[in-house]
């Protein structure tokens, strides 16, 4: 990611865009912050928000014509906020908190003609910037049309307070001028720039036409004259006076600095905003009415009214994603952290964990009104980290070893249908289904061979998606090439995938191969005769994240479920919006506790029993304690008739074992081939109590690893012993991780009491 890419990405996330109210306010008062302060009864904080942006807050806060109210999102569910009344409450009860500083004098003299609110604003803004300002008016007081307000709304003393304010910034106010040509000549001679407030009698007698100022700059002509304010076709708007005064002051400042009057002024005045705020589900609330309308809001009423503000923001992706919630940030900020992380040469890369925790599932992109590509950013960053050797070795090693095992001699195999030498079809169940439900793989295969003509080959293996997710592009490419070569060798049959991740990978990275989902095939086929009782209650479907963009597969699954007679209640976050179970992007390996959270969150989308058609979704949600079955459990129920909803998560060791046994079993029963020789250490028989097994799963330790440790210890005698209880403690480092096992010999094998590991290399270890 380079700087321009970062900027483009940052601009895609709209969380930091202005809320509708501030965008609609001609001077962009932070109405949301103002409401936030009032709601928590921080009266001075609320006043500070006004003082920061609003000129003459004591005046404007009393009479603001609240253009923001028309834009308020609260109106979608209740009444819009009573912003004007709250401003009035604030400025009438809290004196000024923040007095803006006056910058050092920097020359340039400006004449402000008139004394209405736009003249006052222009004079104040320019004086604050250090300009020498003379306000000249035919009137005897400041305020222009504001003097027409009733005393109870805008007391005369408050309005005349503006004179003191202007004085304090050094504005020279001159009342009682006659506006005529001589006056104009004097003004032009003495000043570098002039602002004409159109809320001022007598302007017509001057030799300058103030009726059509340029809408962007308010320039009239090009000799430093500007005009604004007054009554327009839309009437006399208070905020229009303020806006014009401020806009003119900025133009004059640019004019005096001899820089462009027009560049980058799009966001001045009311402007559009891209902020996207969903108000669905927010309780509708009516505007709070002051008990005594003549005195306006009390403190309590103000706080109540302001607390109706929904504090507009987007956060739509964060609301749904366990990963974004965990890192408490939205994509714009995360992408900046990723960029900074990449830029570190020496020092700690604190964002590694975050980058490796994204499920790469694309849910946020579907939710985002601007399709922020969080998964693409995280995955390509991982690829970059691998290329630069900054990827933490421990993040994905366990998952990659699992993939290696699935592709290795003990699990992988490719065969034509028994008794045939060609295949029109190739069943590809995927590594996780073979690991989770080997019986279902066998039964599905037999069903396919019985119903499809032309030969159905079988391939057990792994599509390589763990390599892709972990940024190991070279490994992934090799895996894909071997897969393609194998498919070619079989005569390019149509591949039938049971796993939607495999399906997505083949579709994207081997588009020349013919691939269909098992569900599409089964949907067009006679279904097996059902032998399992269908649950009486409706179930909910947990779509896997990898079918997010495959409505046809989702439809086929629902057809099959219907044919089975299972009733379904859809949950709101299914289909295109579905969550990942935590396996996606290898999140559950790089961040074990977060993986558990993600699975739990997906499982909790519905109170109903779940039905999954991805083996990892099934197992992860089952591990989180929910009742969930795999669709194949109902299509091809296991002989022992266990309730599919109660099938436990097999865990990593059992998955290995299941894959190896599946291969042996199929080779033996269908192809009548000799089993593959197993290594010596497999002769170690283990007894592992459930709590130790759970520990091993979380710690990513396999039964295989334990067997290797004990085999080695028993062969060499190198082990520690506790004379008290006769337990042994031994360690072994098969590749990079050193495993420690506390065990005890038993008549038939070894009881495992504990297992842990570390990556630090001890003296005498191979490096």
């Amino acid at each position, binding site marked *: 990611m380079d700087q321009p890419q970062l900027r483009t990405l940052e601009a895609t996330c709209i969380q930091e865009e202005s809320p509708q109210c501030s965008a609609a306010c001609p001077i962009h008062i932070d109405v949301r912050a103002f409401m936030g302060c009032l709601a928590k009864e921080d009266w001075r904080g609320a006043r500070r928000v006004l003082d920061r942006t609003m000129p003459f807050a004591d005046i404007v806060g009393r009479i603001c014509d609240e253009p923001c109210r028309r834009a308020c999102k609260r109106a979608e569910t209740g009444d819009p906020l009573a912003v004007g009344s709250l401003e009035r409450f604030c400025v009438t009860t809290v004196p000024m908190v923040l007095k803006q500083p006056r910058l050092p004098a920097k020359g340039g003299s400006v004449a402000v003609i008139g004394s209405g609110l736009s003249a006052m604003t222009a004079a104040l803004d320019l004086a604050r910037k250090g300009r020498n300002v003379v306000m000249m008016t035919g009137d005897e007081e400041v305020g222009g049309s504001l003097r027409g307000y009733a005393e109870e709304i805008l007391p005369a003393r408050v309005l005349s307070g503006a004179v003191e304010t202007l004085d304090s910034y050094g504005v020279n106010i001159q009342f009682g001028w006659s506006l005529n040509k001589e006056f104009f000549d004097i003004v032009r001679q003495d000043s570098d720039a002039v602002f004409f407030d159109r809320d001022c009698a007598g302007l017509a007698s001057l030799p300058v036409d103030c009726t059509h100022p340029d809408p962007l700059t308010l320039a009239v002509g090009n000799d430093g004259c500007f005009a604004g304010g007054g009554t327009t076709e839309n009437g006399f708007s208070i905020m229009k006076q303020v806006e014009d005064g401020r806009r003119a002051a900025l133009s004059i400042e640019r004019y005096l600095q001899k820089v462009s009057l027009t560049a980058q002024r799009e966001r001045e005045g009311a402007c559009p905003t891209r902020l996207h705020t969903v108000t669905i589900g927010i309780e509708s609330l009516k505007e709070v009415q002051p008990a005594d309308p003549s005195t306006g809001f009390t403190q309590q009423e103000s706080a109540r009214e302001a607390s109706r503000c929904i504090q507009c923001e987007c956060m739509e992706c964060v609301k749904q994603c366990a990963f974004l919630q965990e890192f408490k940030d939205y994509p714009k900020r995360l992408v900046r952290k990723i960029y900074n992380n990449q830029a570190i040469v020496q*020092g*700690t*890369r*604190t964002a*590694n*964990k975050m980058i490796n925790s994204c499920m790469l599932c694309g849910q946020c992109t579907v939710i985002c009104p601007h399709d922020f590509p969080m998964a693409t950013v995280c995955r390509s960053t991982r690829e970059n980290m691998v290329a630069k050797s900054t990827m*933490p*070795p*421990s*993040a994905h090693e366990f998952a990659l070893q699992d993939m290696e095992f699935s592709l290795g001699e003990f699990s992988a195999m490719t065969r034509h249908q028994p008794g045939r030498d060609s295949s029109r079809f190739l069943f590809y169940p995927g590594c996780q289904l073979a690991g989770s439900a080997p019986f279902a793989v066998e039964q599905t295969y037999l069903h396919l061979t019985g119903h499809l003509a032309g030969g159905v080959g079988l391939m057990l293996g792994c599509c390589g998606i763990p390599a892709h997710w972990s940024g190991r592009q070279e490994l992934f490419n090799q895996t894909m090439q071997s897969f393609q070569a194998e498919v070619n060798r079989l005569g390019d049959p149509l591949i039938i995938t049971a796993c939607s991740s495999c399906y997505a990978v083949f579709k994207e990275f081997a588009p020349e191969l013919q691939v269909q989902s098992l569900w599409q095939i089964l949907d067009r086929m006679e279904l097996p005769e059902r032998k399992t009782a269908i649950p009486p209650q409706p179930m909910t479907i947990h779509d896997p994240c990898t079918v997010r963009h495959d409505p046809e597969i989702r439809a086929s699954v629902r057809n099959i479920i219907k044919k089975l007679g299972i009733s379904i209640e859809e949950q709101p976050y299914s289909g295109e919006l579905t969550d990942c179970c935590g396996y996606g992007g290898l999140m559950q390996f790089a961040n074990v506790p977060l993986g558990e959270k993600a699975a739990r969150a997906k499982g909790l989308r519905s109170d109903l029993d779940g039905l999954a058609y991805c083996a990892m979704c099934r197992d992860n949600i089952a591990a989180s304690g929910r009742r969930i079955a795999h669709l194949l459990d109902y299509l091809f129920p296991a002989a022992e008739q266990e309730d599919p909803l109660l099938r436990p998560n097999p865990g990593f060791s059992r998955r290995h074992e299941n894959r190896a046994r599946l291969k042996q079993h199929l080779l033996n029963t269908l192809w009548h081939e000799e089993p593959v020789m197993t290594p010596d250490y497999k002769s170690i028989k283990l007894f592992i109590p459930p709590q130790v097994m759970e520990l091993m799963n979380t710690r990513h330790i396999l039964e295989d690893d334990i067997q290797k440790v004990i085999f080695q210890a028993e062969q*060499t*005698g*190198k*082990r*520690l*012993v*506790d*004379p*008290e209880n006769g337990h*042994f*403690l031994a*360690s072994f480092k098969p590749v990079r991780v*050193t495993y*420690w096992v506390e065990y005890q010999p038993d008549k038939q094998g070894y009881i495992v009491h*504990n297992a*842990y*590991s*570390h*990556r*630090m*290399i*001890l*003296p*005498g270890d191979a*490096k």
Partner: protein
Amino acid sequence: MSNFSFISETEWRCGCCNKELQPRKVNVEYMGSVFNVELMVCPVCGFVLVPEDLALGKMLEVEQLLEDK
């Protein structure tokens, strides 16, 4: 982690040499960084004990720190 001591009384004895473990300074290494730490070691064969709390505590912490460097 360098120059830290992680010695503590232990029930474990070396099963091979039938000796009590004794504190020894040893070098442990990860990702090119070497740390000289005091651990419980068999005085005869040099078997080094890494107890569970060390492996899952300080050692893991340092491993992860080094991986993010």
